[in-house]
């Protein structure tokens, strides 16, 4: 994972999408069994550009534009995998998973198990999640939904470095991986990322299932992922001026969930706030807190809290959206409240 100082780097003027496309390209060069199927992945190179250049590089047999037939082309991923290929299926927005969830959770996730280990499913489902102001059907995260269903690894990178390394790891994995990009980050330039903005040109992986501390602090641990890492870092800067020293842990993977890392951090700071842009109930925040308490014991921490989308669809109006989706201001407020409790 460490990179030598003389490693050639991608230009800071690249956006995150270009980094992801670069990661896929390198893996496709190394493994000709990788094929990419999805809407707008070919001629356009993805609605956010995260498959740009792939069809030109590898032809339309390996990188193919699909009709709006998610059930069919997600199911094709199953058959391709069983025929020895390593398909990457793009579901444009994670919100559309409803129409093909059947193939995802009943076949991709379960075939390895049902076959007694005889049929691996090296399938990557690449999809964009997160809020972009487009209301109830286009602004969800849903990583908790996949995580609840057994058999899938789930990753949601926050930084360009991790986006590339986790994509490479996903494409090399023999297990199914749900790779969730954040719609709100894909067009950001590398230079604008607060962490992990330096991306080597060559191939490397970031291990699936390992969290990373992106900011050290003494008073409280924020565990979060995806675009909320950026918001948590902004909140942490603000809180530093108010005498609260925040540690920020980027989970990076939801499955496997690195509860050990979070528990170690929380044990040091004494307080844990889980921030999740996904729905609050029955999801990542409850799971993580439970696992941390299982590791540390019920009385180990001075304070525990969680901050997520409190079981309400994402509303259209900006005023309503800001009231339900965590942002840097609401994260800072949640930290202050946690600290004020003692």
């Amino acid at each position: 994972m460490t990179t030598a100082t003389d490693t050639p780097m991608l230009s800071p003027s690249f956006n995150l999408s270009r980094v992801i496309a670069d990661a896929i390209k390198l893996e496709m060069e190394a493994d000709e069994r990788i094929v990419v199927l999805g809407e707008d992945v070919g001629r356009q190179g993805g609605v956010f550009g995260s498959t740009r250049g792939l069809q030109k590089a590898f032809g339309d047999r390996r990188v193919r534009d699909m009709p709006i037939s998610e059930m069919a082309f997600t199911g094709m991923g199953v058959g391709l995998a069983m025929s020895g290929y390593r398909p990457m299926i793009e579901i444009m927005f994670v919100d559309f998973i409803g129409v093909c969830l059947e193939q995802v959770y009943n076949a991709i996730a379960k075939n390895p198990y049902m076959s007694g280990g005889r049929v691996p499913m090296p399938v990557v489902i690449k999809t964009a999640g997160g809020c972009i102001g487009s209301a109830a059907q286009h602004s969800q995260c849903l990583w908790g939904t996949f995580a609840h269903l057994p058999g899938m690894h789930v990753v949601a990178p926050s930084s360009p470095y991790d986006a590339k390394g986790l994509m490479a790891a996903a494409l090399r994995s023999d297990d199914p991986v749900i790779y969730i990009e954040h719609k709100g980050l894909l067009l950001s330039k590398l230079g604008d990322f607060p962490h992990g903005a330096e991306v080597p040109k060559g191939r490397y992986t970031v291990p699936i299932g390992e969290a990373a501390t992106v900011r050290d602090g003494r008073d409280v641990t924020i565990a979060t992922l995806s675009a909320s890492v950026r918001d948590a870092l902004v909140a942490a800067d603000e809180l530093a001026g108010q005498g609260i020293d925040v540690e920020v842990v980027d989970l990076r993977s939801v499955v496997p969930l690195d509860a050990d890392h979070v528990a170690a951090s929380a044990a040091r700071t004494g307080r844990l706030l889980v921030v999740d842009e996904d729905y609050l109930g029955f999801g990542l925040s409850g799971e993580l807190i439970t696992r941390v308490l299982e590791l540390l014991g019920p009385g180990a921490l001075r304070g525990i809290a969680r901050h997520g989308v409190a079981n309400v669809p994402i509303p259209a109006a900006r005023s309503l959206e800001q009231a339900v989706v965590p942002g840097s201001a609401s994260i800072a407020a949640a930290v202050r409240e946690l600290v004020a409790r003692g």
Partner: protein
Amino acid sequence: MTLDLMTYYRHMLRIRHFEEACLSGVASGEIHGELHTAIGQEAIAAGMVGILRDDDALVSTHRNHGHGIAKGVPLEPMLAEIFEKETGLCGGFGGHMHLFDPDRLFSTTGIVGATLPVALGHAYAAFLDGSDAVAVAVSGDGGVNTGGFHESLNLAGALKLPLVVLVENNDWAISVVSSEVSAVGSAERAPAYAAWGTRVDGTDPAAVAVAFAEAVARARRGEGPAIVEATAQRFRGHYEGDPDLYRTPELKEAMAAKDPLVIARRELEAQGIGTDHLDDLVAESQAQIDAILARVRAAEQPDPSRAHDHVFTGGVA
């Protein structure tokens, strides 16, 4: 069942000006989500005007404004919803892709292909009610390749339900050319579902009206489902902000010749209608939308404390 060209021209102007008002909301940041307009496709919605009753259902897509207008949804609450205002059709909770006007059985969804199953439910309700109401589902040429399209039309054909599928064929599903990923056209699929099917020039409102009225009349008489495919061009990117690099400048120029408003105006002039009169119509339509837009702009966004209303009928999450 057709109206005169002058009337169609006015309907098309209203839709165009409405869409342009929406564009101004994106530019100003008042609309902060995705916006899809049907600029270039106005003749299809205009051709639907006057054919449906309030008790006929219309289920539309992400590109839905013209259909709402054709169904008689009042312009001001519709624009206010698109502008995310508390005075909107849905109080600002739904937004542009999620318009609901239950009084006129008009609804929309942002999930491609999700219109047909819902319209099929309306059609079955009409059957249960013993009513002669019909249900219309709108789809793009991309939406016809979803599983829901096939499943719904099969069921409608098997049960002879009054489902009319209006396919707006603008050739493209974002950057994908639909003919490259479709085994056959949409109208050609009709026989597979024991449905009536036809393809019309969707830049000609009268042609759309004739075909759509026929489909609705057949469904009302209990003769089962229909597919009406209307061809037109989408002038703008898929959504506002789409760089639209997948279509060449030459293609865009050729598309511009298919502007239904330009075509209609040329025809009206050929009929001897004076330019001044036509200019007056344009100004009148613009003024009407401008007045609505001003009121919409002055309205408030919903109060954030209400964000948890409506999750359940009781109001509280």
